[in-house]
């Protein structure tokens, strides 16, 4: 299915984020599948970069685990090609990896290879609209989407620059700061959604969503989808430290991966169900 197809469906989209290769290639493959079993509609699959300046501790640690397991851009592309899931994959990363790939100091070889393995689009965290034209051009050439992040601080003229270049969906950053699961969802979200209400691309909200209630509130405020990273990665981090514990106790590693996968599927269901409730909560348009 394509990104357009996902957002054309009646349900709000549930978009989990994972760092590819966290904590190992095989476990990470299993976790992506587990999330799809739990109702994921799109996967934002992180390609780990050594300097993740927009991430809080949870994702920083995931990035360290993924890099230590040997994840590289080339292996990442193999990882995507190996995935046995039907949902669209959006590559989330930092610009230097896109820029270096293929050795010609520009985004084209990276995008070409991404298209080859079936990636549908990109979110590049440190690439504001002003610097994004080369990547936008390459995405157009190979038929991929380019998602931009709208922050609560984004000014009106910057919104215009993004509107001209965005495709796939808009990533609405729910609050200022770095990534990380939160107790509360931000009330800045509704205001941001209202500002871009008339854009004809879907709006997915992320940053801090950690349970079904958050998902419900965000979707009832008008979001077309929810993006969840840290709350899922917390489960992987727990599974990983528990896994190294049980392994030293003589229990097979596979058991702890299976258990973590089950927990991820359950968490995915909770979030997806919350999002669906949010849609039902919305005031019905009068007819």
């Amino acid at each position, binding site marked *: 299915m394509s990104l357009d197809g996902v957002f054309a469906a009646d349900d709000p989209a549930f978009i989990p984020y994972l760092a590819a290769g966290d904590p190992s290639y095989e476990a990470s493959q299993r976790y992506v599948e587990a999330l799809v079993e739990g109702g994921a509609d799109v996967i934002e699959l992180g390609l780990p970069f*050594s300097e993740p300046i927009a991430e809080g501790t949870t994702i920083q640690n995931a990035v*360290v685990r993924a890099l230590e397991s040997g994840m590289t851009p080339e292996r990442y592309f193999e990882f995507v090609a190996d995935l046995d899931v039907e949902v669209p994959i959006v590559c989330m990363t930092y*610009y*230097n990896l896109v*820029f270096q790939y293929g050795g010609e100091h520009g985004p084209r070889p990276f995008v070409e290879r991404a298209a080859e393995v079936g990636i549908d689009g990109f979110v590049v965290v440190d690439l504001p609209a002003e610097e994004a034209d080369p990547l936008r051009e390459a995405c157009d050439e190979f038929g991929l989407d380019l998602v931009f992040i709208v922050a609560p*601080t*984004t000014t009106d003229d910057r919104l215009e620059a993004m509107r001209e270049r965005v495709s796939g969906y808009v990533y609405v950053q729910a609050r200022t700061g*770095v990534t990380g699961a939160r107790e509360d969802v931000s009330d800045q979200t509704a205001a941001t959604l209202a500002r871009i209400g008339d854009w004809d691309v879907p709006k997915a909200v992320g940053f801090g969503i950690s349970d079904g209630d958050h998902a419900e509130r965000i979707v009832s405020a008008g979001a077309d989808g929810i993006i969840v990273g840290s709350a899922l990665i917390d489960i992987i981090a727990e599974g990983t430290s528990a896994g190294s514990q049980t392994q030293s106790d003589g229990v097979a590693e596979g058991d702890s991966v299976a258990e973590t996968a089950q927990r991820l599927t359950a968490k995915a269901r909770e979030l997806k169900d919350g999002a669906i409730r949010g849609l039902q909560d919305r005031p019905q348009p009068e007819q």
Partner: protein
Amino acid sequence: MSTDDIDATDTSGTDDLDGTFGRYGGQYVPEVLMPAIDELEDAYRRYVLHNEDSFMDEFRRRLADFGGRPIPLQRADRLSDRYDTEVYLKREDLLHGGAHKLNNALGQVLLAKYMGKDRIIAETGAGQHGTATAMAAAHLDMPCEIYMGETDIARQRPNVFRMRINGAEVTPVTVGRGTLKEAISETMRDWATNVSDTHYVIGSVVGPHPFPRMVRDFQSVISEEAREQIKEKAGRLPDSVVACAGGGSNTMGTFHHFVDDEAVDLVAVEAGGSSLSVDEDRGVAPNSASLSTGNEGVLHGARTKLLQDGDGQIMESHSVSAGLDYSGVGPELAHLVDTGRVTPVNVDDDAALEAFHRLSQDEGIIPALETAHAFGYLEENPDAVGDLTVVNVSGRGDKDLETVIEETAKRDLDIAPDMSVFEQVGAGGMMDMGGDHAGGDGSGGDHAGGHE
């Protein structure tokens, strides 16, 4: 894209604020920071470039009264004899705080005040920028938090004392190797969280536009003075100007007003560390020579020359000097190297340590380990600097005494002073006493102010 079609010979100096230097520079930051950067660009244009509300007058006045400018240019008599060339020292070590860093820190903290910000954050490597920022923040009555890698906290202890004594919070950064690169990343995360009321005082000519230009402008007072002073003292422009380069702020500050004087060679001395080779498997470069050995990439908001592996993952750097220990370098400096205007050279840890002792013994100036690299170059290439050279003494070495004693003992250098005096008083081993003594001296020395 805009960065590609700029005239490569347009180095600087125009009012064109597109934020690039040839192919380098730009603004590669998360969207949440873009409005803050736009706001900063606007403030930079108004207050710094157009002196709105007499900002620059106040800045200059405070640099004089609080900072101690103008800073002398001094003939180095014994080095001049030793190298058979006229060697002049720009004594930025005499600036309040003991390094050139205050020129920038004072400028930015004052600018933050004009912008109505009420909190200051900064990263620091050697602790000199953190110290300068803490001083400026105390001076201008602003709360201040400094991020510093744990490795650097251990090797630059005196400056940690100084920052705390000036009232700044010091927050250790424990990820990665715990040096300058990680400290910058962590400060950017704080900024992304507290962006509306906080100003990030970046410590060098790095980061997204307008930082590289703005920091250069604040630091360019070094070359503005030095150019006049050398004409007055030596009757002409120098054949060369030499400065050490970490991020490149003392370098750009020392070079800026000489860039158009094409007969003046500009030499940027990077840290050669323990070796110029690279360990790709471990992702480590045992040096900080991004100008000499790095290649183009994007880090901390700018396109510039970087130490990175073939995939674009940033490599850990190394230098005995914390202030040079960084995987990137300012975009303008990278550009001036590409155009051939600036010559990048490097000096390794051993040569820097020797130079540290030589300047201390021959000239009575204890330099920062960063600065010592510039003098290591002079020792290794006395014929390359012409008949008249200006070397920037970017900082004083009080903060480094502990590290220097330790690193010197490891190497068995002939030039090293004998520290057995501590054994004579029976107060334990030289290493212990060396360490304690250095720590106390560095923090205590600061009470007397920058000038001694």
